[in-house]
């Protein structure tokens, strides 16, 4: 048994994981239909993969955080938020330093993954910040 989370947190996380899996199926199906039916390539392979993974992950993390199920019993929103902020800064810093284009030839460029990952982790940082302040305000 996973002792990191209590029984309500595990129940919520199982439920949200199931939702996220369904979102993955739908996104893959829609992406496949768009690519094969309209012969549209909207992103480089790595960028496409990142978007398809990031969207259900963001759904899961957002709902889990706001239902108090993402952070374990011995973790804090502050520490987790700082860790995610550090990762976001690294990705954003590398993207800015590289000077690569976000869009090339009408599609998301290969190196746009750095910016997307930076935004991804920055969003998670903001969510942790909101939860941190709302929890501290409550006490």
């Amino acid at each position, binding site marked *: 048994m996973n002792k990191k989370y209590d029984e*309500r947190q595990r129940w919520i996380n199982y439920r949200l994981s199931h939702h996220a899996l369904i979102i993955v199926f739908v996104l893959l199906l829609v992406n496949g239909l768009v690519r094969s039916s309209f012969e549209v390539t909207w992103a480089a392979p790595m960028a496409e993969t990142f978007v398809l993974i990031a969207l259900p992950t963001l759904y899961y993390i957002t709902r889990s955080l706001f239902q108090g199920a993402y952070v374990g019993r011995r973790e804090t929103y502050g520490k987790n938020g700082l860790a995610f902020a550090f990762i976001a800064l690294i990705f954003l810093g590398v993207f800015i330093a590289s000077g690569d284009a976000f869009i090339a030839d009408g599609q998301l460029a290969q190196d746009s993954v750095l910016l997307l990952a930076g935004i991804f982790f920055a969003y998670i940082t903001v969510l942790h910040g909101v939860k941190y302040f709302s929890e501290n305000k409550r006490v």
Partner: protein
Amino acid sequence: MGKNLKMKSVRVHKDMTQADLAARVGVTRQTINAIENGDYNPTINLCIDICRTLDVTLDDLFWKEENDE
């Protein structure tokens, strides 16, 4: 599922916060809050832990008469 006002009443009577009770039974404060608000139906093991911590029986906290709904 209605609010568990009995549990809240006993906890307050024992001068415990949700965080105190959560720490004693090994769950998060949000879980205690969800049980008191009727948003989460706890397992029998957690019910027993809560009852032991508050020195009451399962009937005192979790038994519902038909007209309680």
